[in-house]
């Protein structure tokens, strides 16, 4: 394997739960290469969004990066993750879940995109900045960019606002785009357009994307690689097709079975029993064991090891070789 663009190792993010700090993200290791798209999936509360935010140093109040190393091609070499803020505007940008609330209501969209340009430092003067803003808006498929640059966020639809958000991120000339549920708040048809746009940008700009989503269908559409997270840990990782067609962890299988609109026509939807545990109640051993239909007593004692079962493919299930996980 070549040197990855971004690598994070053993990232721990703590959240405050009633005065006690507990590890909501508990030792996550990920890597992404230039021009590829990594999908990060899991139920809500599994820590996927916290992992993403720790990369760019934007953890919400009441949470903190407590450990982990980060490397970013040419910018950071194996540094402590709490230094993540240095990556902001310097090769990493982010797209958010709610485009309408992620845009400042009292700044025109053009001005907000221009703020991103400022960080690159390659733009000089008002006219140059304006020209680049219009080009960026055109690139993300906003019609009449000349006029739309002077619009206020409240004059835009959700899909258009998300395009503005993406343009704002692109303005910083990023190598890596972090997309946190970028389509969840949008209509289905708009979802497809935005995903298409992200895919185009990846190809045209050789942009790497980490796409966080709870929606396997969304991930499948654009991701080359998939990492499945459960209770603060990566439980399975590998090529998207491999993981989504032949899961090697009962949790991945459970997610697939409970997701409609994939290609498993005729199979009934079967939700996973129970609820994911909150960070202060993570069980010992395999954290999925209490909900797992295949769990054995030894699962509750099993140490967490992400075992590489073939090149680029790993699972944390100790029974992966004996289980024929049906999907």
């Amino acid at each position: 394997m070549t040197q990855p663009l971004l690598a994070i190792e053993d990232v721990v993010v703590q959240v405050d739960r009633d005065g006690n700090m507990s590890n909501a993200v508990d030792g996550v290791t990920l890597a992404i290469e230039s021009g590829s798209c990594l999908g990060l999936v899991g139920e809500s509360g599994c820590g996927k969004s916290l992992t993403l935010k720790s990369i760019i140093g934007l953890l919400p109040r009441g949470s903190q990066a407590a450990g982990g190393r980060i490397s970013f091609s040419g910018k950071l070499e194996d540094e402590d993750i709490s230094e993540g803020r240095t990556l902001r505007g310097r090769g990493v940008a982010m797209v958010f879940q709610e485009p309408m609330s992620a845009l400042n209501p009292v700044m025109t969209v053009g001005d907000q995109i221009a703020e991103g340009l400022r960080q690159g430092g390659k733009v000089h003067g008002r006219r140059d900045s304006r020209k680049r803003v219009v080009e960026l808006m055109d690139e993300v498929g906003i019609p009449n960019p000349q006029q739309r640059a002077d619009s206020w966020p409240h004059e835009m639809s959700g899909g258009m606002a998300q395009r503005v958000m993406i343009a704002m991120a692109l303005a910083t000339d990023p190598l890596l785009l972090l997309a946190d549920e970028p389509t969840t708040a949008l209509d289905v048809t708009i979802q497809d357009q935005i995903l298409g746009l992200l895919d185009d940008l990846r190809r045209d700009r050789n942009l790497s994307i980490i796409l966080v989503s709870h929606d396997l269908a969304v991930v499948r559409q654009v991701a080359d690689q998939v990492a499945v997270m459960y209770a603060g840990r990566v439980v399975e990782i590998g090529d998207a097709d491999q993981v989504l067609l032949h899961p090697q962890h009962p949790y991945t299988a459970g997610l697939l079975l409970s997701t409609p609109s994939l290609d498993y026509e005729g199979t009934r939807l079967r939700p996973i029993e129970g609820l994911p545990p909150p960070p202060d109640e993570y069980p010992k051993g395999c954290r999925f064991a209490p909900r797992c239909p295949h769990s054995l007593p030894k699962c509750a004692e099993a140490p967490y090891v992400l075992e590489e079962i073939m090149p680029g493919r790993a699972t944390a299930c100790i029974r992966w070789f004996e289980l024929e996980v049906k999907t």
Partner: protein
Amino acid sequence: MATPVAEGRALTRTRTRLGRKVNKKSERRAFIIGGAIVGAYILAALLAPVIAPFDPNKQDLFNALQAPGGEHLLGTDSVGRDTFSRLIYAGRVDLPVAVIAALLPFIIGTVIGSVAGYAGGVGDSILMRIADSVQAFPIYVLLLVLVFAFGQGATSFILAATLVSWVAYARLIRGEIIRAKQLPYVMAAKTAGLPHSRIIVRHILPNTIGRSIVYAMSDIVLLILALASLSFLGVGIPAPTAEWGRMIAESQIYLRSHWWLLVAPGLAIVVLGIGLSFLGDALDQRTRR
């Protein structure tokens, strides 16, 4: 169950939980501090004849303008009255006047506001127009003018405060009632055929009155300040009654030489104000939950 909810929600949840915990602690602290201060003032006012070492209005020109310490704990004023005793007796004026001046508009405003909000229609619109005009007035200047119109004294002050501030309560409660009318339990009571007055009093008011009480608490602070200010201006409580603002006004010319005469009553107001604010904050946080 694998119904994926937006990740963001989970984060907001931990965040609010964090905030709430801190609030709970500070709420209790605010409540204790505020309660202790206000309680002490009420007690001192009630027990004034017992606590006060001197007659608050007894003049003693031979012992005028004495410094604090000695026989007179906080010294004496220009006609030899004991400052400490006057401070304590002043609580018997400022406290009840401010409380009544807050309570009266609270009651009147609540009644008018609930009827208007519940009934709606023409009466409601007229009421709101009146409210608009009263609120367009610079209220405390109006207070000054009303005291002018009705003459000096506690009654005028209470009357003026009532005329001015019932509007705020009427607005508050009307808004809450209009919102509450849409709630299922009120709808249910209505379909069950309960009389209107009963619906308002038993079902709506208990759930909507919290914000008005909080407002009244902060209003008492402002009223005490306003009463002191009017007395300072010479149009509030007439002499020789002991009143904090008036005590400051009477001693203003001694600022250079006998500053304690101004500092003591000022601190009396400030400390009471802090106590009431703390109580109000604690109540505010409680009703918000």
